[in-house]
């Protein structure tokens, strides 16, 4: 967490003194404003293996904040301004199932990129993806099937995948036609790098708090764009 924050600060600093020329980037921090609810523990006792595979009782993950209210697991991505055709990378994106929890909780992948879903739980899972643009599927992943590989061929806004055997399990996947996306870390910071100078529209998406967009100008140095999500307020 500290390393990531230092890295962001270094990039900002270095680009400010003109040392980095390789490509522009957008950095920033996602913060939460308002009183945040405490994340409740997940009830994983429907499957004894899930209990056994967790040393500490896992908690819900829909709003994870650090001490400065930096929000983890916000997917930040470019929506406009990229005029390059990108090919999906060879290496797959990986989501693991361990302790009947998806890790990571939010991921971005490129359309056509392989997604490997691992089963390190030694129990039976099903992978139920709920995209709207790509094809929805529900596949069994018995304990013997350690890896299940899928691809999403079309770009799509973040959607949920879940396990119906263990209904508390949920993760989110955003599919893009470019690699210019990032998921905020423990301290709420993100970096989108390798951007050409230009005008961009970026979006920050949170699974519960919705989306925000911003116009960002990238020059040779790093551009900065923070986002603040607020708790919904009553009767306004």
């Amino acid at each position, binding site marked *: 967490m500290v390393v990531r924050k230092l890295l962001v600060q270094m990039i900002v600093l270095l680009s400010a003194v003109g040392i980095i020329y390789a490509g522009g980037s957008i950095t920033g921090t996602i913060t939460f404003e308002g009183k945040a*609810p405490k994340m*409740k523990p997940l009830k994983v006792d*429907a*499957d*004894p*293996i*899930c209990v056994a595979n967790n040393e500490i009782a896992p908690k*819900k993950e*829909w709003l994870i904040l650090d001490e400065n209210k930096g929000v983890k697991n916000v997917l930040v991505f470019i929506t406009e301004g990229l005029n390059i055709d990108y090919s999906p990378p060879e290496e797959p994106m990986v989501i693991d199932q361990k302790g009947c929890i998806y890790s990571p909780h939010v991921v971005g992948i490129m359309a056509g990129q392989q997604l490997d879903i691992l089963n390190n739980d030694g*129990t*039976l899972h*099903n992978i*139920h993806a709920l995209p709207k643009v790509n094809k*929805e*599927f*529900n*596949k*069994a992943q*018995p304990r013997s099937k350690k890896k299940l590989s899928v691809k999403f061929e079309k770009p799509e806004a973040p959607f949920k995948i879940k396990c*119906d*055997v*263990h*209904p508390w399990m949920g993760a989110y996947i955003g599919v893009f036609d470019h690699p210019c996306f990032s998921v905020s870390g423990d301290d709420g910071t993100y970096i989108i790098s390798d951007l050409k100078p230009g005008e961009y529209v970026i979006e920050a998406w949170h699974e*519960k708090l919705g989306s925000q967009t911003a116009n960002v100008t990238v020059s040779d140095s790093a551009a900065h764009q923070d986002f603040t999500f607020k*708790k*919904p*307020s*009553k*009767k*306004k």
Partner: protein
Amino acid sequence: MGKNNYHKRTSIIWVRRLSKLLVLSTLLLIFAGALVKSHEVGLSVPDWPTSYGYQMFAFPLSDMIGGIFYEHGHRMIAAIVGLLTLILAFLIYHTDDQLWLKKTGFFALGLVIVQGLFGGLTVLLLQPTPISVIHALFAQTFFMVTILIAYGLSDERAHRIPYDKVGHAGLKIPAYWVMGLVYIQLIIGALMRHTQSGLAIPDFPLAGGYLLPPFNQTMLNTVHAMQFDLDVPFASMSQVVVHFLHRFGGVSVAIAVGWLSWKIYQLKDSDNRIYRQTVLLDMLLLLQITLGAFTIWSLKEPLITSIHVVNGATILGLSMLMVLRILPVRLQGKN
């Protein structure tokens, strides 16, 4: 001759018992289905008619974990209900003289087969809302048919005098209203559950902080703020409307049941069975309203929610039985 009569009487008694067992099994099946939905595990077994490649009753018990326990359990109970319906239809065909009842027996068999196919389609098509709602609706309809069969076979009906109890004529309209409104309320309930609208209004007895909700953006903001604090998903306005319709339906049913009860309690020569049934109906209605409130206050605790569903089905069954008891015995006879 005497021996033949004895055999016939014995078989009639067993067919009656079977019909009552089917009614109770169907109620159990509705409860099992409600548990599946309440736990949101309808797709925990991705294949159908097999379960993870196993035949229905060959699935290892050790793998009945998490949502599979509810989904596969629901399938097994459904198979037993299907089998009971099959046996009952053929027993009625061979032992009963009433043509309408024979036809109803096979209608129930057809209905349970179609219902099973809808259950399978729900799994294979990944729970499209219309099919899931129809599946829930057919469950209630099938339950009504099992009550019709059980009543048709019953000793009570066999001993009813055609066009007895003229005093019941005034009860027909309210009884129809109760049954119709409960059925509509269960359709809305199914729609609410299968559009994830069960907590679209997360407070009770108020609705989004209002006594009379205005259904505007201010209300939706308030609802979202409540949902955020309660850790439940945000609802859209259409979900809020569906949820409110279910509450409105509950009030309508309560008024109709009150009307029917008032009529029955006023009758001095009311049939004792009808009187007792009305008391039971009133008690179940009070229980249902309480369960509805606790469903919200407990944030849809699966067991409470499922009891709310099965109690709703029981109210439908009782209102159906009320209509059958109030109606003149026009179905009596051998044709």
